[in-house]
């Protein structure tokens, strides 16, 4: 049995025709697949996050170690690409939403009710951006609401309307371009509850709900 195996092996290398070309083709193909898989998976984990680095609570995504000096390599790569300067997660937490609470992408063609309650933190701000992280021009020059200025009910809860056309109360304009991608960023400074490593915690039930009301 080894004899026939050796014979097949030597014949492969002696054959200057299709078989060695096929072998070369195989190796090139394998390398291309490896490159795609390797870089593709790296891109995905850096750009979108993974269970290693990111928590998802309803529509909100948060990187656990963003800005931390001892963060894992994915978080560091994500940070370097973003060009941002986040506070370390013991000092602040950041939650980003690109969808409403039912999972549909936020669109200026729809109207949303964002409902929230007081957060156990020193200060927070909910700001609207496009997918590049830029604020959206609007005639009211209103780009965010924060814990000091949001109009609240007597129990401290609040509602913010996210829409293209003006609404009474807390209105966050989504701008005139109907096809713009929207991102909501909730930044929470000085969370008072932390986990064992000091990382600020905001319980899932306290994060704002984003309810789609109607679309054009």
């Amino acid at each position, binding site marked *: 049995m080894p004899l026939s195996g050796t014979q097949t092996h030597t014949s492969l290398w002696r054959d200057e025709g299709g078989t060695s070309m096929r072998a070369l083709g195989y190796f090139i193909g394998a*390398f291309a697949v490896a490159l795609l898989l390797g870089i593709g998976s790296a891109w995905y984990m*850096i750009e979108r996050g993974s269970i290693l680095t990111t928590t998802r609570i309803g529509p909100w995504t948060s990187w656990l170690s963003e800005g*931390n000096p001892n963060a894992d390599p994915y978080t560091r790569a994500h940070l370097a690409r973003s060009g941002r*300067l986040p506070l370390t997660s013991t000092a602040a937490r950041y939650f980003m939403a690109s969808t409403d609470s039912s999972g549909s992408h936020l669109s200026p063609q729809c109207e949303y009710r964002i409902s929230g309650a007081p957060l156990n933190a020193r200060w927070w701000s909910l*700001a609207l951006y496009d997918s590049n992280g830029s604020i959206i*021009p609007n005639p009211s020059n209103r780009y965010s609401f924060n814990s000091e200025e949001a109009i609240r009910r007597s129990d401290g809860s609040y509602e913010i309307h996210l829409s293209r056309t003006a609404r009474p109360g807390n209105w966050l304009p989504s701008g005139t371009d109907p096809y713009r991608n929207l991102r909501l960023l909730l930044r929470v400074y000085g969370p008072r509850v932390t986990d064992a490593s000091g990382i600020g915690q905001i319980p899932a039930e306290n994060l704002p709900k984003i309810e789609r009301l109607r679309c054009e």
Partner: protein
Amino acid sequence: MAVVLAGLIHVVAVLTLPLLAPRDAHARLSALGPANTIIQLPALKPGQQVMPNMAPDVRYAMCLFDLTEGPVHLRANIPDELWLIAFYTPIGENFYTVIGADMKRGNVDLVVTTKDQSVADATSDSPEALENLLVVNSPSSKGIALIRAPLAGPSRSFEAERALQKSYCGQQPAAATAPTPAAPPATPAPSGL
């Protein structure tokens, strides 16, 4: 075999990205002005935004510190408990933060050094100066100090900006400085940079 190679490529890609990232925070902010000076970041306006996802309701001042010629001093008078002074490596790792809410007094006098630099060289001769001086060890010879003044209400913008303009960043120790005017607000790079 392709999977092993994929794994290797994946690891190399993830580890080298921070070294290669062309538009990390330091690169974007370097366009605004020289190192070792306080630069006020203008309040956010569409088309005028230095970094992605900056807060519209926070006022910022920053200093690109460069420790190659020696330690760099930063002084500020923190007017309220919302202020934060955060120190970053060039890619944005926040290695130290002064939290206004934890400070007993408003005056912050600190010096940023590399681990090889001696603080005694950085200060004037008086021992009292050393007592109140906060020493921040930077893991890299360059980095960013970012002062945040979260607005405690919509009308507080002007007073926050005035307080930020009184901060100092540079190589002069406290006793040696005469009151210097802060650098004027810089023209930011266009958004999308």
